[in-house]
């Protein structure tokens, strides 16, 4: 490696996390630790009905018997579940503010810093936002407009109160609480998150969006998102995440369930930029997320797009269960790891119905001393006639101390199903670099251009609002980069 490359690598590794500020705000927390009392406290705080508490307690009793899944290519000290606050709310949120004027101005300031269009005039940009601060959903904007169409977009806490039928029917139907230990944990202590219901035949006219932020120290965030697209409907949902810089590791274990009925389509995009820890690998968020979508009706479609740049540890496998005939599952992912970050991410496509199709495009970029793993499973069950899958996972290695790994599991039980899988790993092509530099680009610009080109296939899948942000994020991640 030449000295220039080393220099640029060095500059990059010093690149700072700009969302690392802390908002000084009074918090309300229960005692540290997890036990039945904590769960009762959460349930009571949220004013939940009896059946919800029972549901949580059942999940808790399952969790007690379970062990964390160990198969991922990650190494981290054991998580002490008793050393975490399971609920943290900015004070004075027992009653939800009716409009933005009642929200603590400090909060508004925080979100302004993050560049989130909370205020109504910004909402006109066309994004409806639900903001989750630590454990409480702060404000949902643009609500009235959506209500006219019959779309329900609110926090899950509110949905439990107002739409118990839908919650009872669908909550836990895609990710059963007993699926694995993180889903059980989330089911027991989930605090807030978003709930979306799109009625029959409605095309949601705007992008729905949630912004998650962990603020308080030693807090875990356990959000739960449930999206139901009824027959013939369409929705595009965005999710963004940030957290302040802290020396301790914080836990984030979310569950996201999507249900697409007949002819419905759900598009779910994530830009995950939790605090990744500093250059020495200190601090950062442990991100253990379970995301699963069920294409239950015919001709339904679920599409996951993710840009993963943050978190000390990413453990995330957005998956699709293609149950309805002709249903489609898609997964587009860019994962960038730097310093001591570890990412083990991928997807799981389970083809059950006839003529089901899935497509997986995964791009991994490892820098510094990070480890980046793609882990994906594609399985065709007996009845998945004429099912089709295409998988492509490419990895780019920058520097010789990082690792890029690809672990696909491919299982076919049907002889009419066709599956294709391709993967490649390499460093940035010298010839391409040379070409760009010859045309007058600096080393940095050239690398940024090549990496952006490498990710383009995924980034272009993002909705406009996020595409710009994501592209910036990739450029920032590569600022002063690579070789």
């Amino acid at each position, binding site marked *: 490696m030449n000295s220039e490359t080393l220099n640029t690598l060095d500059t990059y590794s010093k690149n700072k996390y700009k969302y690392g500020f802390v908002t000084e705000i009074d918090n309300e927390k229960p005692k540290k630790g997890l036990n039945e009392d904590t769960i009762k406290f959460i349930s009571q705080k949220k004013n939940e009905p009896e059946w919800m508490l029972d549901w949580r307690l059942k999940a808790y009793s399952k969790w007690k018997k379970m062990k964390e899944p160990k*198969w991922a290519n990650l190494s981290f000290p054991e998580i002490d579940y008793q050393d975490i606050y399971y609920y943290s709310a900015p004070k004075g949120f027992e009653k939800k503010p009716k409009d933005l004027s009642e929200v603590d101005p400090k909060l508004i300031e925080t979100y302004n810093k993050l560049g989130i269009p909370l205020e109504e005039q910004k909402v006109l940009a066309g994004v409806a936002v639900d903001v989750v601060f630590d454990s409480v959903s702060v404000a949902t904007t643009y609500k009235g407009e959506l209500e006219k169409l019959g779309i329900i977009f609110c926090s899950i806490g509110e949905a439990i109160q107002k739409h118990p039928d839908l919650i009872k029917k669908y909550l836990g139907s895609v990710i059963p609480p007993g699926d694995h230990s993180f889903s059980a944990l989330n089911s027991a202590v989930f605090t807030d998150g978003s709930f979306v219901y799109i009625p029959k035949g409605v095309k949601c006219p705007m992008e729905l969006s949630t912004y998650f932020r962990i603020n308080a120290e030693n807090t875990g965030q356990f959000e739960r998102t449930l999206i139901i697209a009824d027959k013939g409907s369409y929705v595009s949902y965005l999710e963004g995440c940030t957290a302040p810089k802290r020396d301790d590791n914080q836990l984030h274990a979310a569950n996201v369930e999507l249900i697409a009925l007949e002819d419905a389509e759900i598009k779910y995009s994530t830009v995950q930029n939790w605090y990744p820890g500093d250059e020495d690998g200190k601090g950062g968020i442990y991100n253990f997320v379970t995301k699963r979508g069920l294409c239950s009706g015919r001709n339904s479609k679920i599409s996951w797009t993710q840009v993963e740049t943050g978190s000390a540890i990413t453990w995330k496998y957005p998956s699709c269960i293609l149950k309805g005939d002709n249903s489609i599952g898609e997964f587009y992912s860019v994962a960038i790891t730097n310093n001591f970050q570890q990412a083990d991410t991928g997807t799981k496509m389970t083809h059950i119905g006839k003529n089901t199709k899935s497509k997986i495009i995964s791009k991994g970029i490892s820098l510094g001393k990070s480890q980046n793993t793609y882990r994906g499973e594609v399985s065709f069950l*007996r009845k998945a006639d004429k099912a089709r899958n295409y998988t492509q996972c490419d*990895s780019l*290695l*920058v*520097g*010789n*101390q*990082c*690792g*890029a*790994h*690809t*672990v*696909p*599991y*491919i*299982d*076919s*039980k*049907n*002889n*009419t*199903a*066709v*599956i*294709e*899988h*391709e*993967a*490649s*790993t*390499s*460093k940035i092509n010298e010839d391409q670099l040379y070409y760009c530099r010859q045309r007058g680009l600096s080393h940095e610009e050239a690398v940024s251009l090549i990496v952006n080109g490498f990710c383009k296939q995924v980034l272009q899948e993002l909705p406009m609002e996020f595409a710009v942000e994501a592209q910036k994020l990739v450029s920032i991640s590569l600022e002063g980069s690579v070789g």
Partner: protein
Amino acid sequence: MNIQDNYLQNKKNIFFSENKDIQNHRDKLINIFENDKYDKKNNESLRNINLKNFIDFKYKYQIPEETSVINNNQENSYSIVSVNGQCTSFKDDRIEITKILDEDYNDFSKNNTIEKNDHFVNLNSLFLNSGFKIVIKKNNNIKIKISNIVTDDDLTIFQKNNFICEEGSTLNLIEEYENKNNSTSNIINVIKLEKNSIFNHFLIQDNSPNHNLIITSHSSCKKDSTYNQKVYNFSEGYVRNFHYSELIETNSEADLQGIFFLKDNNTSNNKTSVKHLAENCKSNQVYKGILNDRSKATYFSNTHVNEVAQKTEGYQLSKGILLSDNASYFSKPELKIYADDVKCSHGSTIGPIDENAIFYLRSRGMSKIAATKILISSFINEELSSIDDEQMSEIIQKKLVRYLSKVK
């Protein structure tokens, strides 16, 4: 019978049972078996197999009466008949064949490339009852053909062979496994290639439905050496091919290839793994399978590139054709890369025979079956046409024709 009882009862005719170190190691293994929960999901060595056959087996071994023969018919060519895993000692100025020694056991058990929880490797270490060691001396070019014969029903062969190619030597080895009786062979081959040596290793497997064959090999390549392995699996019984390769010095190459033809209720488990531990090495792992009826196959491939192994080229390819509704194929092509200046890739496909191709052939007047057969032959043509040895090519063609005759 349980594994521990089996062992204690038959300790006398198991190799090296007087050696204390080995005994200690075996005690540990017994402990592992006692506590094993046989987790089929996470233990690659147990996937898709009928556990009962391999846990509750009855140990039986017979020392062969007729000593195995070595026939030196041509100058550089040898034929060996190995009976029940044993082979008589032989020595000339080109090769040397001996029994395996205590030290060879240890040499293998320390090896960390092979996974610790591999059920069959542990069984082999515990019940080891046969095996031999072949050394090819410096700068010789040798051809060897080994026929592996098991004499009686119900025998359980636990065999360990050592192959050592000294500096500058070339070995062409054809191993045949064609057994008709109801027995189990569990074989481990430990292969060492010194500087500048070449080892072309062909394994032809064609056993009857009641014969279980478990082959595990571990090869390590030093500077400028090349290990080529080709596996042709036509067996009607269970076959497991697990092959590991380590490229420990620069400019070495490992090429692990295999094709398998399955039908009826047959199962085959395959694994290849290459560890790149030095610069400028190349590896290639290619497995192709054709599955008919209710057959099942797994293929795990793995390329591991160490931090120091810059300029590595590592390729993997896995292809499967499913001919029937009830066949299933599982593949897991893995890449673990810790160096940046590498070119590594894998490709994996599973599917039926291309309908367009069938249509093309049928529109030219062929029957559907004939078209299918042609397409199957062309699917593996690359592997078949690369065989230099005419005699061997003929043998394999015949076996292919026999398999195709059952395709409907």
